């Protein structure tokens, strides 16, 4: 498979950007650690530097430092078997500077997250033990009614998709958040700035949709999931910038070029696989090894697909439209029947032969996702492991399970 120019470019950009974040933090600029399910667009519009918690957790995990980070919390008496994905960043603050990934995470002045589940708020509450770090919580409301085919509703009909009560709640919270950030940073949200950010995010999402649709029909698949993930996700963390929008366009153009060239494949692509669940950050090479050993290529991960379907929102009021993006962001991925309907839709559009479903402990409804895919005639392997904590599952276990599963497929 060809390597994507956009993947290398994104990774290089990210390293430069992070070095800049460290410099800005050292110069006493505010820095926010924000969970992926919280509205980063506000920080973008206020030009407040931010690091996405899950991105940093993936870096720590990929550098083999997740266990050490979680051990920091364990020694303080906290459970290291709960909310690892949320907690790794906090533990990583204690990594020795000489071994911390990319020089280490600077101390954030604020941690911003939704109260998802029973313990997420407690993990972020612990950040307040770090000197001069505050925690700003947002509610996580629930999907009470679930109209079908959410991906058709959310771009324009999001009042119908999510309901006014949920939108009113998050719109009010975002308004308060803006006021809080203005008070504590001295920055002022300029008129029209948030609208500009939202427009750029939509443009980026539309490019991602084109890329997803292109690759869904490409035979053979000319690019590796290992390249797709950083090519999509790094720009996602820079949503609302021209760079992010342009990176998404470059990804499409790179893929289109490879598809038009016939997409030389390194090995026969005998099986088309779908990876449902979070990326296995401590062993991304698994995807390449599976292709080499079984001629089975992962044609789908949720990262490009949710970037394509889950983020675009159009509306006249940028704050309410932003609320519409985040109010049910995780419901799209994890709450049945929304989740199961969407994964089946994606599996069919990508002509998937089988699914590997990494089941996370903090995600409800996994049974219904697996069930829906199987009822659609698609074999599913469920693996119960933590995507960022190698102690819960482990690379060897995952590879062995995948290999055994693929051996049963004709």
């Amino acid at each position, binding site marked *: 498979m060809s390597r994507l120019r956009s993947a290398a470019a994104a990774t290089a950009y990210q390293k430069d950007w992070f070095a800049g974040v460290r410099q800005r933090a050292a110069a006493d600029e505010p820095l926010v650690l924000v969970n992926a399910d919280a509205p980063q667009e506000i920080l973008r519009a206020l030009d407040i530097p931010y690091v996405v918690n899950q991105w940093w957790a993936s870096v720590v995990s990929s550098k083999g430092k997740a266990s050490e980070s979680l051990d920091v919390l364990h020694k303080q008496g906290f*459970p290291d078997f709960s909310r690892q994905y949320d907690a790794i960043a906090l533990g990583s603050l204690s990594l020795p500077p000489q071994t911390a990934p990319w020089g280490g995470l600077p101390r954030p002045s604020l941690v911003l997250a939704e109260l998802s*589940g029973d313990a997420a708020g407690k993990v972020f509450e612990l950040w307040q033990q770090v000197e001069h770090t505050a925690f700003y919580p947002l509610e996580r409301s629930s999907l009470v009614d679930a109209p079908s085919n959410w991906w058709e509703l959310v771009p324009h009909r999001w009042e119908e998709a999510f309901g006014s009560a949920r939108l009113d709640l998050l719109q009010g919270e975002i308004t308060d958040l803006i006021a809080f950030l203005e008070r504590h940073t001295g920055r002022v949200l300029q008129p029209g700035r948030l609208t500009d950010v939202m427009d750029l995010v939509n443009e980026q999402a539309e490019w991602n949709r084109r890329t997803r649709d292109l690759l869904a029909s490409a035979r053979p698949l000319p690019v590796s999931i290992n390249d797709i993930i950083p090519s999509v996700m790094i720009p996602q963390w820079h949503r609302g910038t021209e760079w992010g929008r342009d990176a998404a366009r470059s990804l499409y153009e790179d893929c289109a070029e490879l598809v038009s060239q016939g997409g030389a494949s390194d090995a026969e692509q005998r099986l088309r696989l779908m990876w449902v669940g979070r990326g296995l950050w401590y062993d991304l090479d698994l995807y390449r090894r599976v292709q080499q050993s079984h001629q089975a290529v992962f044609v789908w991960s949720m990262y490009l697909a949710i970037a394509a379907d889950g983020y675009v929102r159009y509306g006249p009021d940028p704050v309410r439209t932003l609320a519409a993006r985040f109010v049910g962001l995780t419901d799209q991925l994890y709450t049945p029947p929304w989740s199961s309907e969407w994964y089946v839709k994606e599996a069919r559009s990508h002509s998937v032969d089988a699914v590997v479903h990494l089941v996370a402990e903090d995600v409800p409804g996994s*049974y219904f996702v697996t069930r829906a895919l199987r009822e659609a005639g698609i074999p599913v392997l469920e693996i119960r492991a933590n995507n960022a904590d190698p102690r819960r599952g482990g690379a060897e276990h995952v590879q062995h399970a995948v290999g055994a599963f693929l051996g049963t497929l004709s």
Partner: protein
Amino acid sequence: MASEGLRALDALQAAYAERLSRVRASAESGRGVIGYLGADAPVELIEATGATAYQLHGAAQAASPKATEVLGSSVDTWAPAVLDLMLQQAFGPLTAVLATRDCQSSMYLFYALRELRRLEPQLGLPPVHLLDMLHLPSPHTLAYNTARLGELANEVLPQWLGRDPLADDELAAAIRTRRRLRELLGEVEQLRRQPAPRLTGTQALRIHGAVRTIPAAAAVPLLEALLANTQSLPTVTPTLRLFLTGSNQDTDLAYVALESDGAVIVGEDHDWGTTGGYDVESDTLPALAAAVRDRGPAAPTSTMARRAEATARAVSRCAADHVLSYIRHGDEAPSWDYPAQQTVLADQGIPTTLLAAQPYVPDHARLREAVAVLRPAVSGRGHR
């Protein structure tokens, strides 16, 4: 007169022991019974309609493969236990189930029940609705809770019960009755805090459990009779005054085991005790929304700091010798609370012990052993 207290106590204990058979009979008789999940449920709203509100619970059996498969192995083991009873129709033909967001397991159970009802109608599961009540102390959360309560009162309950939306005076009367019930439960707690308690923890848990299964209007006279005749209740002499924190206790199995050798649970801060209630300031829907928002502090919806301070205050009120954090497998929140609780209590000279990853059906012998080793830690505090 004296024996009336014992009769009232016996009636409450029987209501608890026979709760499953009684609710099944009630549902089968055609009386509207709405099962609810979690202490965030506004029981007043249900009772104002004339229906019976029944807090769903598990039973002393290992989870079935189906329940474990549907909910996964990482969820609080309470949830598969409830799902099993639902699948067995053990509660009888419930009119409906009202789930809440008191904890993530309740929410997961809601999504599972809704999907199973849709995908497998032959299971005969009742209609289910999620009442999404949240807990941050903000006006936006209050407005959201009020809107969700309004939907329940004006749309969901009328549809389930085939009646008109609730009138203000119906709700007000129900709020007043439950307020009286809560006052009486507070007086019941006083019976446990005395140097020689007149109620064991198991008896108190069963009283709290019983009033979650019968109408408040029926529970109030029983509690009044009990409290008017407390002298008839024998006293107990604890060998150890325990305070229980950690997981909710929807059965009495752990209490029976922990108290089986002379220890007495003199208080707790899980949702099947007084922590599971809330004070409604006025007899209105917005007041009810505020009360649920501010309920607790419960482990899944509170900060660790607030929870630790509340535990310490509750322990002091009970003059407990030792605090036991009893945490079931899959119940995340109490594990995060424990270090702060331990620190605050240590500052007050109260020892703590953690029993983590406990199975849903407690191992009676192991719990007796666990309590037995706590005794040497006691050093003359409290009323001993």
